[in-house]
């Protein structure tokens, strides 16, 4: 009791000076928890929709991604562009895509940060400059990988007919 009262207590978030090492640490937890809660639900929904049959999978796509084209348009002179033939995005499609982009980022952030932890587990990478450098590399490469993946998806949707 007496002892506990006099002991120095650990400073908390508001008195720390923010730095890359601290950012990458809190992001590791945040991205991991996001993946665990939102990512696992999305993943199970996807698997359950596949198992449920074509109608249930289409219902999943309708909510998360995009509604299927109403009917194959056979009008002469119709726009051959697959993107134009599809229905426009609903509110839930936008929300679904934002969640997917967020999950992609959380995936890369947690993945790269986890690889950093494997290195730290060996006892390496604790020197101040090294630690700062690799913390920044983790954060920046996660953002770049997320951008690359979604540019790839976007490019395929625009360029490829199959979307």
């Amino acid at each position: 009791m007496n002892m506990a009262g006099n002991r120095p207590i650990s400073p908390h978030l508001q008195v720390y000076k923010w730095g890359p090492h601290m950012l990458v640490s809190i992001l590791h937890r945040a991205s991991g928890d996001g993946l665990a809660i939102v990512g696992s639900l999305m993943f199970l929904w996807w698997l359950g929709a596949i198992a449920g049959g074509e109608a249930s999978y289409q219902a999943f796509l309708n909510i998360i991604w995009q509604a299927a084209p109403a009917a194959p348009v056979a009008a002469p002179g119709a726009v051959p562009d697959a993107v134009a033939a599809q229905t426009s995005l609903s509110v839930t499609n936008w929300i679904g895509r934002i969640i997917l982009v967020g999950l992609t980022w959380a995936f890369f952030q947690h993945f790269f940060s986890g690889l950093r932890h494997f290195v730290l587990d060996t006892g390496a990478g604790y020197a101040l400059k090294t630690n700062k450098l690799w913390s920044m590399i983790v954060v920046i490469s996660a953002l770049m990988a997320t951008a690359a993946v979604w540019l790839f998806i976007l490019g395929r949707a625009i360029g490829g007919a199959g979307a």
Partner: protein
Amino acid sequence: MSGGQIKGGTSLGRVRGLGSAKHGSQHWLTQRITALGNVILFSWLFVSLLLGDLTQYSAVRGWVAEPMVALPLILLILSVFWHFKLGLQVLIEDYVHGDAARIVALVALNFYVFAGAAYGIFAVARIALTGTTAA
């Protein structure tokens, strides 16, 4: 520290007999092993999903139904649900205060992890065992 005048004994004396020896590293080690499993399995899943067309139902179902896809998917579910159980457990222990709330949260976490993993494995098994054409 060496005084020991405080009621209840020294720091060492107060913790003696309270903790289980030899299992202290279990949580840490299991988190690393499942992390390594996740690295391998998610690298495979992520690239596969990115290169495939997820809007084509029959192609997606046919892919999941392949034995060498269904099996790693089940391993992935085991690895990732185990890993996130350990991770969320630490989060709850850090931020949920009060014995009652913490115990309720930990029990809910355990229920969700087992139910979620069972749901996922059952879905994959159903897809793999009923073939590619069954609805």
